[in-house]
């Protein structure tokens, strides 16, 4: 018999080594998240999954599950924090949903709707982030990057290519590719790579397939993300890999 903890009053079983997020998803309970992906080792940078554990806030994707914890997630206090974090991510980049190919399939946008983010909240920073259209089949639109590092992890852990990495510090942190020219065409990325599939927003796009599904008929146009996130989560979760280019994940 495995140990359990409490999540918003529900009893959640877990296995040793699982984090609060992994155990919650495995038990069919959704906690909002952005940089967490069930197939990769969690690193806890977006902080959307912040919960209260015995009264103290912690990122649930990296917090090890322990017997008897009292975890609160679906409370207004935390959803207010999450709304502000989503507003911060929108203010940090250049996000124009109506013209974005990812609209309706975008996790950031879906979270915005689901958490009821009705206003921008902050003055936008309008960073200068040129596109990289050098690759014949792939477009990189850095304007939408939320620095979740999923492509970095996918390329490092699954593809074994390390095509992506993060450069700079603080607000100037940005995504780079593994080429002296700095251009994607000079990397060994391929359309079949895992890194091509994981971007939660509209940075890594396949060329010439834009808008093949009309807006209004896309994934999160149908049902809110909270009702769908569990579809992606493996019921047995213990993803662990090593990623040379990743931050803070020894």
């Amino acid at each position, binding site marked *: 018999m495995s140990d359990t903890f409490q999540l918003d009053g529900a009893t959640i079983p877990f296995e040793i080594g699982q984090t609060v997020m992994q155990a919650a998803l495995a038990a069919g309970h959704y906690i909002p998240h952005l940089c967490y992906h069930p197939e990769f080792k969690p*690193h*806890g*940078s*977006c*902080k*959307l999954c*912040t919960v209260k554990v015995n009264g103290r*806030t912690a*990122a649930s994707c*990296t917090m*090890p599950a322990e017997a008897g914890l009292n975890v609160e997630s679906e409370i207004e206090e935390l959803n207010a*924090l999450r709304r*502000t*974090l989503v507003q*911060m*991510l929108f*203010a*940090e980049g250049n996000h124009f949903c109506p013209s974005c190919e990812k609209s309706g399939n975008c996790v950031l946008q879906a979270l915005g709707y689901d958490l009821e983010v009705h206003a921008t909240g*902050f*003055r936008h*920073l309008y960073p200068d982030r040129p596109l990289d259209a050098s690759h014949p089949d792939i477009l990189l639109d850095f304007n939408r990057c*939320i*620095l979740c590092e999923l492509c970095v992890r996918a390329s490092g852990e699954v593809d074994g290519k*390390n*095509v*992506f*990495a*993060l*450069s*700079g*510090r*603080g*607000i*100037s*942190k940005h995504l*780079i*590719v*593994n*080429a*002296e020219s700095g251009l994607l065409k000079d990397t060994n990325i391929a359309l079949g790579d895992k890194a091509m599939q994981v971007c939660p927003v509209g940075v890594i796009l396949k060329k010439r397939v834009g808008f093949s599904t009309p807006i209004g008929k896309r994934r999160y146009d149908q049902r809110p993300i909270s009702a769908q996130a569990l579809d992606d989560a493996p019921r047995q979760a213990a993803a662990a890999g090593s990623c*040379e*280019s990743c*931050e*803070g994940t*020894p």
Partner: protein
Amino acid sequence: MAADDLCLLEQIVARHGNDASKLLQILREVQECFGFIAPAAVNSLAESLAIPRARIESVASFYSFLHLTPHGEYRVLFSDNITDRMLGSQDLMAQMCQQLWLQPGKVSEDGLVSIGTTSCTGMCDQGPALLVNGRAITRLTHQRVMEIGQLIRNRTPLADWPADFFRIENNVRRSDLVLGSTLLPGVVLQIALALGGQHVVDSIKTSGLRGRGGAGFPTGLKWEGCRNAPGSEHYVVCNADEGEPGTFKDRVLLNLQPDLVFEGMTLCALAVGAKKGFLYLRGEYRYLLEPLQAVLQRRRDDNLLGKSILGFPGFDFDIEIHLGAGAYICGEESALIESLEGKRGVPRNRPPFPVTHGYLQQPTAVDNVETFCQAVLALHIDAEKYRAIGTEKSSGTKLISVSGDCPRPGIYEYPFGVTVREVLQDCGAVNTRAVQISGPAGVCLGESEFGRKLGFEDLPTAGAFMVFDDSRDMFEVARNFVHFFAHESCGFCTPCRVGTSILKQTMDKIAAGHGTRYDLNEVENLDRVLQTTSHCGLGRSACNPVLHTLKHFRPAYENKLKSLDFEPAFDLDGALARARQMTGRDDAGAHLKAEGI
């Protein structure tokens, strides 16, 4: 790249055993040799270390003192702490920029020089200060800045600059247990070796010693935890990444009492069972590297380091010095360990803690420079006697770095429990409006609180004590600190990365005369988000300077506010500044007339 350069590059890599975990040290040396890390060097390093080139760029771009593009033969960085500014650093920088005909942050057209700012360089007691190619110059005056400008223009090698420029004073104003110690190297170690590691742990626990980096974790418990943690190797790390603006005590300790530091590390090695230690020295203290290495060599020669130390078979321990490269966040212990491993200095998720999973995931005891010194003296004078010094929960003495508005800035060592007022009296401060304790992340005290005591019961501190008299605008002090946090945020987590920039924007908006009450309220909202969701202490304390100064000095904010509920940050007249610059006009006709359009 010339053949002999490449050869040098190979030598650098070979010196570090072709080991990718030494990447930061390798990059720092490449930077020092060539003035920047060229794309060809990145390619060559990627090949010889067998790592992706993007990882090298990723690491290099994290540290302020490493450059991937040419940054001039002479790279001048003015220390930008508030204490430097109070001593006129901004005027001096403007003077140098004018003399050398360039803009801050840009490289001159001929590739000769770049001028910019950097976070506090730890010379607040003898500022204004700057770094030129990583070497510290203090006590800047208009005369000295002019001479520096001429030396640069004449391309005089740094080695031929007047030695007096590089003289660093210790400015010890009050000595006690640590600064007054005349203990000979090896004396305490000899006794400890006879008694054994467990005895060291027990004594340190009895002494009540707590970490001097600011957090105050009981040192004995940390050493015990590390000793008992399973692992193939154990490590000792000395945190000499003294980046907290206004602090410079570790600089003085490393200069005056290096043997105490290294002896403390060796005692810790005995206590935790380590064979290897690192001293992580902040890049700003590059000038201390050679003297410290000489001390290490002397200790090796005296059998105080190396194999079978002092003839005790099986007790082997040695210390390596790692240099930082301009990143305040590396003072956070898990970020420091990441940096030691040659990575970006991003704080790790905790738990697990370094004491069980530290350097290379092995048990690691990380302690501050001063903590190691105190540990030696606690053992020397006897743990019980040590415990009697200071206050109940803060035993021993504390080094305080005093700077700002006072005639006698420098290092003051007191038993814990000294009041703020006593320190102010000793340093000769008059008409004091405020004191900032423990740097921007600490607390700002107004006059009514000068009776409070330094110690873990009341005012915990890593040692910074910045004094502001009644001529100072405390809003500008807070704004300087907010800029500091935004500059030093590692950028890992959303709240800190974006929140510190938004806070900076808000403070700049108020400074420009466009602030409203709404903006002040927003600071409180930001604080709630940063405090509760940030990955580490930097984000959690980033709003402190504003909240503390608002509490005591609200008028300093309110007299800058527009009496409106809302005011856009966009400034119509300001938007014409570029056009004015291009046309060389600044007359009334080049400005929008009506106020507040």
